[in-house]
C-alpha cells in the first residue's frame, strides 16, 4: 500500500526572501530506504539505499528523481560521495563498493564482507571507507583506496571495548581525517598515524562533517541526540535531549550545523552555543542523512528503519538554504 505522508508546511528560522519550507523532494515511498544523498555540483543529486538484498541508486538529473541503472546486482547501499560528476563512490552492505567513472558503474573489490557505512576522500587517490555491523561477530572496518586498490587498514587497539562498527568518515584534507563509530569511538588520521580520542560519550557516534580544521562536528545517540564539536583545540560534547537521536549531519557555514535523526528530527545547531532550533516534524520516520549542495538545496533522506512491517519505505525532503546556513 502506498503511504504518503501529507506535507506539513514546516519552517525553520526564515530570513527574508528565502523559502525554507521543507517539502518532499519526491515520493520515495516505493524507492526503499534512502541512506545517503550527495551532489557533485548542485545540478544532479544522488541518493542511495534500497532494501537489504537490493541496493538502489537514485538521481534527480533533469529535475526528476529516477533509479540509476547501474547494471549491477548489489545489496543495500549506505553512502555516496564523490569528486565530480564523473567520479562517484558508493558503499554498501557486504563490503560493496561501487564506482561511477562517468561512463559506467563498476563493482570494486573491497577486501571485506563487512557492511560499509561511510566513504569520503581527500582526493580521488586518497579515499577512506568505514564499516562493520555493530554485532558481536562483526569487525570494525577501515579501508583505504590509494588510487589503485582498496586495502584494509589495521586499527589501533581501541580503548573502548567491543567496537564492532565504524559509521562515517570525513576530513578537511589528507592529513586531517575524522572517523566515528560505535560506543563513542572517534579516530583521527593525521597523515601518518591513526589514533583514538575520547570525546566524552559512549553513545554511538554516527556521522561527522565540518567546514575546516577548527570546525568539525559529530552527531549520534540512538535515543537522545548527542553532539561533539571540535574547535581546533578541544572537544565539547553535549546531550541535546529532548532532541532525539541523530544520524545525519552537514555543514556549509562554520557556525551552523544541520542535523537529522530519528522521529523525523530535523534541526540546526549553533556550533558555539550548541543550542538547537528544530523544525516541526514533517514525518515520523527516520532521517539518516542530510546534504547541502552547490545550488543551496538542503536534502534530507531516510526511511522507516524503525518499522517491523517488512516494508522498506523511503523519505526524501528538501528546502532552500538561507544565508548564513
Amino acid at each position, binding site marked *: 500500500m502506498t503511504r504518503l505522508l*501529507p506535507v506539513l508546511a514546516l519552517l525553520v528560522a526564515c530570513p527574508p526572501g528565502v523559502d525554507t519550507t521543507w517539502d518532499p523532494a519526491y515520493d520515495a515511498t516505493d524507492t526503499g530506504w534512502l541512506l545517503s544523498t550527495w551532489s557533485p555540483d548542485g545540478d544532479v543529486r544522488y541518493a542511495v539505499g534500497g532494501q537489504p538484498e537490493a541496493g538502489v541508486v537514485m538521481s534527480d538529473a533533469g529535475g526528476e528523481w529516477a533509479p540509476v541503472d547501474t547494471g549491477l546486482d548489489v545489496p543495500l547501499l549506505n553512502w555516496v560521495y564523490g569528486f565530480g560528476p564523473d567520479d562517484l563512490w558508493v558503499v554498501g552492505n557486504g563490503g560493496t563498493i561501487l564506482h561511477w567513472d562517468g561512463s559506467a558503474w563498476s563493482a570494486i573489490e573491497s577486501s571485506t564482507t563487512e557492511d560499509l557505512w561511510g566513504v569520503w576522500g581527500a582526493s580521488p587517490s586518497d579515499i577512506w571507507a568505514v564499516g562493520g555491523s555493530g554485532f558481536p561477530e562483526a569487525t570494525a572496518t577501515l579501508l583505504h583506496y590509494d588510487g589503485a586498490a582498496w586495502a584494509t587498514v589495521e586499527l589501533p587497539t581501541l580503548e573502548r571495548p567491543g567496537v564492532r562498527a565504524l559509521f562515517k568518515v570525513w576530513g578537511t584534507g589528507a592529513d586531517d581525517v575524522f572517523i566515528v563509530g560505535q560506543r563513542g569511538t572517534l579516530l583521527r588520521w593525521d597523515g601518518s598515524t591513526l589514533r583514538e580520542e575520547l570525546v566524552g560519550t*559512549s553513545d554511538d557516534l554516527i556521522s561527522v562533517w565540518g567546514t575546516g580544521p577548527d570546525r568539525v562536528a559529530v552527531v549520534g545517540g540512538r535515543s537522545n541526540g548527542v553532539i561533539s564539536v571540535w574547535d581546533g583545540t578541544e572537544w565539547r560534547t553535549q546531550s541535546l535531549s529532548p532532541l532525539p537521536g541523530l544520524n545525519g549531519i552537514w555543514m556549509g557555514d562554520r557556525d551552523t550545523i544541520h542535523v537529522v535523526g530519528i522521529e523525523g528530527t530535523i534541526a540546526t545547531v549553533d556550533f558555539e552555543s550548541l543550542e538547537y*532550533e528544530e523544525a516541526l516534524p514533517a514525518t515520523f520516520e527516520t532521517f539518516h542523512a542530510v546534504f547541502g549542495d552547490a545550488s543551496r538545496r538542503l536534502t534530507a533522506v531516510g526511511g522507516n528503519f524503525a518499522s517491523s512491517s517488512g516494508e522498506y519505505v523511503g523519505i526524501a525532503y528538501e528546502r532552500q538554504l538561507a544565508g548564513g546556513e
Partner: protein
Amino acid sequence: MSESLTNDSWRVASRLALASVLMGALAACPGDPKPAEGIYAPMGEPIPSATPEQLETFARGEEVATRRFSPTDGLGPTFNVTFCAACHEKPVFGGAGAHYRDFLLVGQTFPDGSRVELGVNGVLDQFHVDGSRVPTPEGANHFATRNPIPFFGVGLIAELPDEAILANADPADRDGDGISGRPNYERGFVARFGRKSQTLSIEGFLRGPLFNHLGITTDPLPPELAAALPVPVEVVEEPASRGDALIGRRSDAQATIPPGVRTTDDDGVPDPELSVEDLYDLVSWAMLLAPPEPDEPTAETEAGHLLFEEANCSGCHVESLKGPRGLIFPYSDFLIHDMGPELADGILMLDATGSEFRTQPLWGVSPVGPYLHDGRADSLDDAIRMHGGEAQAAADAYAAMSETERGQLVAFLESLGGADQHSDGLLPPDAAVPPAGEYGGPRRELTADEMAEYELGRAVFDRDFPITEGLGPSFNGDSCRACHFDPIIGGAGPSDVDVSRHGSIVDGVFEIPSTGTTMAHRHALDSVRPAFDADTNVTELRQTPTTLGLGAIDDIPESVILANEDPNDLDADGISGRAHILGDGRLGRFGWKANVPSVIEFVRDGLTNEMGVTLPPQEGLTFGATSDDDEWADPEIDLASMEALGFFIAMQAPPPRAHENPTMEDVGEATFGTIGCTDCHMVLEDSSGAPVPLYSDILLHDVAEEGAFGIADGDAGFREFRTAPLWGLATSAPYMHDGRAETVEEAIAAHAGEALGSRQAYEALDASAREALIAFLRSL
C-alpha cells in the same frame, strides 16, 4: 507563536498541546481534578477496569511471566534467571525481589567520564547454559548492584502524559527548595520506568530484561498488536495536526531495544524465542497489574502524612499526577534527582548521571522491600535515612523527628497500599499449613506446640534475612526459601539458583581453594562478584535439591545405609556404593556428596555457607561458622530460630506421590527394578521398619562420564555423587548435580560409570517400556 522554536521549547509546548487533547474532558470540569476511579486491587490482580478480553490476556500474560525457560526454549546462552517472575515475586508475581535476585551492572569507565556497558547490554549474567559461570568481561572496572523493581500500577504510569511529569521539573531549582528534578528523555519523550527513568515504554522495559537476564529473544510488537495493548499505542499514519503528530510519535516510541530492532542470539534456538503473541500477553499483564488501594487514614497515618509534607518528602515523592483517568497517587514525580555521593552508582543511563535516580513510587511500598536502587535498605526507616543529595534535607528532617514521629511517618508510608500483603519472605500473611503428608505439610500430625514450632521454623525458612542482621558479606541466598521453592517452599530450585563450586585439580588430586571453601557465592554486598580462587582450574554448578523429606532420611538407621555398601564391588555387579564417612566418623547423608550428617548440621551449613549468617555454638555440631568479618555482632541468628528451622525442615513431609496412570506406573516400577536402577535408587527403611520411599541408597557412586572433572568434598571424590533421592522428581527439575538435564529422560542419559549398565538397559527398552518407566518416576 513562532514557527521556529528553540531547543526543548516546542517539544514541551507540543506535549502541553497533547495533554490538553488527552485530558480535555477533565480540564473542562469545574473544580479540582478528581481521583481516578476503579484503579485499585490487591497486588497481583488486574486493574478493575480491565475488560473481559483483557482479563483473559492478563491470565495468559501471567503464565508467560511465570513460565520457566530452558535452553531448548532459548534460555541463554547466558542468563541470570529462568523466568520473569523470578525477580518479580514479592509479595506476589509482578512485584519486587529480595537480595538473592540482585544483579550486577558491569561496564568500563574512561577518563573522559564516559562509560561503556559490558556484559549483556550492561548486565553481568551469572550463568552460561554450558554449565559455567559467566566470567567478568575483560576491561570491566565498574560495577553496580540493582535490586528488582515492582510493576504494580505501571500501566497507569504509562498513561501519564509527558506534561504531567514535566510540570514538576525544576532542573535549575528556580524555587530554591534544593530539589531540582529533571526528566530523563528517551528518543524525545519523557521516560519514566527504571531506576533512572531510563525507559519510556513497558514493552521496552520487558523486552530488555527478557534478553539481558534470560537470553530470550523477541521481535517488537507489530503495530496491530501494539495498538491493542491495554495502554494502546495509537498508530497514526496520516498526521494532520500537531496533536495527532505527537500521538504518532508516541507510537514510534514504544520499544527501547530500538524500535523495529529484533533481539537475536546465537544459542541455536530460532529467533524470536518468545512469540509476539506471548510478548503481547506479557506486556498486557504488566500494564494491567493494579496498584494496591491505600488504607483508610488513621490518626497515626494522618500525622505521618503531615510530617511527610513538612519534611518535604513530597518535593520529589509528589502525591498525585493527573492522568487521563483523573488523579493517580504514585507518590513520585518520575523525575531524576541527584541523590548524593553515598547513593551514586556511576551508572549513566540516557541523560541520568551516576548520582541521579528516579523518585521511586511509594504506592504499595510496604511489601516490596528491600529498598533503594541496590536494595541496601531493608526497612523504610533505613531507606529514608540513606537519602542524600537533593533529599538530604528531608532525610535530616526525618532523623531529627522523635521516634514517635518517625513511626508515624513510616506508618503513613505503609498505609499507601499493600501492607496487608506484607510478608517477611514470600509466604502470604497467615498462610495455613497444609495437612500432614501433603506438599508443605508436616510428615505426621503435630501437636499444637509442635505446629507452633513448625510454623515458626517455616517462617524462619521463608524470611528474607536483612543485611543489618548479618547477611553476607557474600552469599548465595538471603533466605532458605531463596533456593528451595519448587514446587513449594522447602522444595528444590531451578537452575537460576545454582551454586558455583570451585577448586583445582593437580596431578589428579583435588585441592580446596585457599579460601578454605569450594563455595563461590553469587552475591556480595559491595557490588562485586565474589571471585574464584586464583588457582581455580575446575568449577562445577550445584543444583538445589529439595529439603522435603530430609527428616525421614535422618531417621534411617546407619546400619540400613551401611548394609548396602559394596565399595569393592564384591558382588561384581559393577556397582560399588560406599558410605561417606566424615572425618569425625559420622555418616554423611545430605548433599550431592553426602557430606552433611544430619538435618541440624544441614541447617547450620546452609545458614553460614549459603547466607553468610553466623551461628551460636551447639555442642557436638561442627558445621557453620560462629563468626565472620562483617560489621554485625555474632551470632547473627539465635538458637531458638535455628532449632525451629531445624524442626521445620526435619518435619516436612516428603513429596507425596501423584498417580496419573497407576497401571502404567506399576509396569514402569517393575522395569525400574529389572534394569538395575534399584541397585542404587532403592527404598530404605526407618528404625521402625517402615519403608522410606526416597529411592536412594544414600551412598556415593561414580556415575560421571569418562574424563569428567569436578569438585571433591571430604572423602567424596570429584567423580562421586550420592545417589539422588527420586521422590518429588516431577517437581524438581532440572536434574543431576549440576542441573544439566532438563528432563528425566536427559537425566537417565547423563548417567555413566557405575550406572552405565542401567542406562544402556533403559536405552534398549522399547518405547512403551521407557514411557512406563518415566511415568513411574514422575509419579514419585
